[in-house]
């Protein structure tokens, strides 16, 4: 379970929050001009990286405000939290980007948030 630092309320338990999936997905400006394939990309296809992931959270059982976070999906470590409208941090800001595809121990599962490498 995560501890999430809401930019408005401070650190709270994850059960107060809901995840909103990938952040910074822009709706096509002229939907009527967009092909079916491009529309499908916007509606159904989201990034699913093992590593640095830009995502949205909402403090459902708190201030009800949305904000963005950068999380490492291979360790669940939250690397940065920033408000909507702020510039997203660049990938270079994070050193411990896991080597893709897996970046995990040679055999077994990737639970190294516990035994941090």
């Amino acid at each position, binding site marked *: 379970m995560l501890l999430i630092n809401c930019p408005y309320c401070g650190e709270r338990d994850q059960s107060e929050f809901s995840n909103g999936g990938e952040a910074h997905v822009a709706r096509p400006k002229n939907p009527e001009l967009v092909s079916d394939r491009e529309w499908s990309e916007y509606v159904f296809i989201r990034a699913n990286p093992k590593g640095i992931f830009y*995502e949205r959270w909402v403090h459902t059982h708190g201030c009800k405000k949305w904000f963005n976070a950068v999380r490492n999906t291979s*360790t669940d470590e939250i690397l940065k939290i920033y408000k909507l409208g702020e510039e997203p941090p660049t990938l270079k800001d994070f050193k411990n980007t896991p080597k893709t*595809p897996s970046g995990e121990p040679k055999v077994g599962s*990737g639970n190294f948030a516990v035994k941090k490498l």
Partner: protein
Amino acid sequence: MKKKYSFFSVLKNSLSYHENWKKMWRSPEPRKSYDIIIVGGGGHGLGTAYYLAKEHGLKNIAVIEKGWLGGGNTGRNTTIIRSNYLWDESAHLYEHSLKLWENLSTELNYNIMFSQRGVMNLAHNEHDKKEIKRRVSANKLNGIDSYWVDKNQIKKLVPIMNTDNLRYPVLGASFQPRGGVARHDAVAWSFAMRADEMGVDIIQNCEVKNIKTSKGKVEGVETSKGFIRSNRVGVAASGHTSILAETAGIRLPLQSKPLQALVSEPIKPVINTVVMSNAVHAYVSQSDKGELVIGAGTDGYNSFTQRGGYNIIEDTIRAIIELYPVFGKMKMLRQWGGIVDICPDASPIISKCDVKGLYFNCGWGTGGFKATPGSAHLFAYTIAKDEPHVINAPFNLNRFISGRLVDEHGAAAVAH
């Protein structure tokens, strides 16, 4: 089939204290090239190799696995098998699989301990009741053995269930007697053994890092044991499929999340069927060893940690204890998580893609185990013929563009 298991072979090997059983499959070094490479040595991948060799006569095949066989979601599920899905497309798919399950132990000459003890899906409110009755009727039209059972019948089938004195009382359920459970390790092992006998190379501890393509065609895979050439690659890597697809320049509509399960200490038989409840999110069955096998939900966010959040277990256990107060003092022995790849419509993808020679079998989300033989059978057909079988044709990648989705959020047991 060379290696037969029989009463006599058990007797013979007992004389040498069971220390001289032969290895079930070879562990060869990878060759430079193969006709077909299957990425992922779980049930789906191994089954695909088996059916490719057996039904399509193809021999030069490799299955490449990152860890050990069946160490991913094949060994991390709650082993429930059923086919009571709502839409025709899914009903045909899962029923195809269930029919293969019914004959699998004989076909592979390996006891996969398939036990048709029935699967029950509970209704806790009027809406559930209407949805489940609708699903039962749809199942009947597709020739699937699904029935509506009322509270009294449930009480007879599962006497330990608390049906009235709880926040969401049990109003009835659907019941599929042909559903059940199987031993998941045995499924992976038996497919591996029989595929190996037919010449399939099973390569463990070898991670596929990259799918190499050129001019819209597959050329091979870059692995931790070097480059392996092949012009046909089938990916059945569950949670990691979308990451591999990306290396070939394909974006799949998948999101990976941990799905948890847990097992209790073993007790005497108390529950002889599988009981699932979507509304309060609790499902439970009892293994042959006597452990309660409990399935929890997915975490609400993408993650590749094979662990899952504690709050998810808490929710499930809360519901289990309310439904079965008798389990209140039991101890849990083990808990684990598997990374499931979930499609927006909760239905799988068994499909070709824009890259020639590259095939995907993914998106099984929270319910892939029940489909293992069916999925493998159809995926083998798709790879061998370079076109989908009539059963898996609706489960193509193009459905996300055309809009012909197969929305199974209702029949998929775990809420997405």
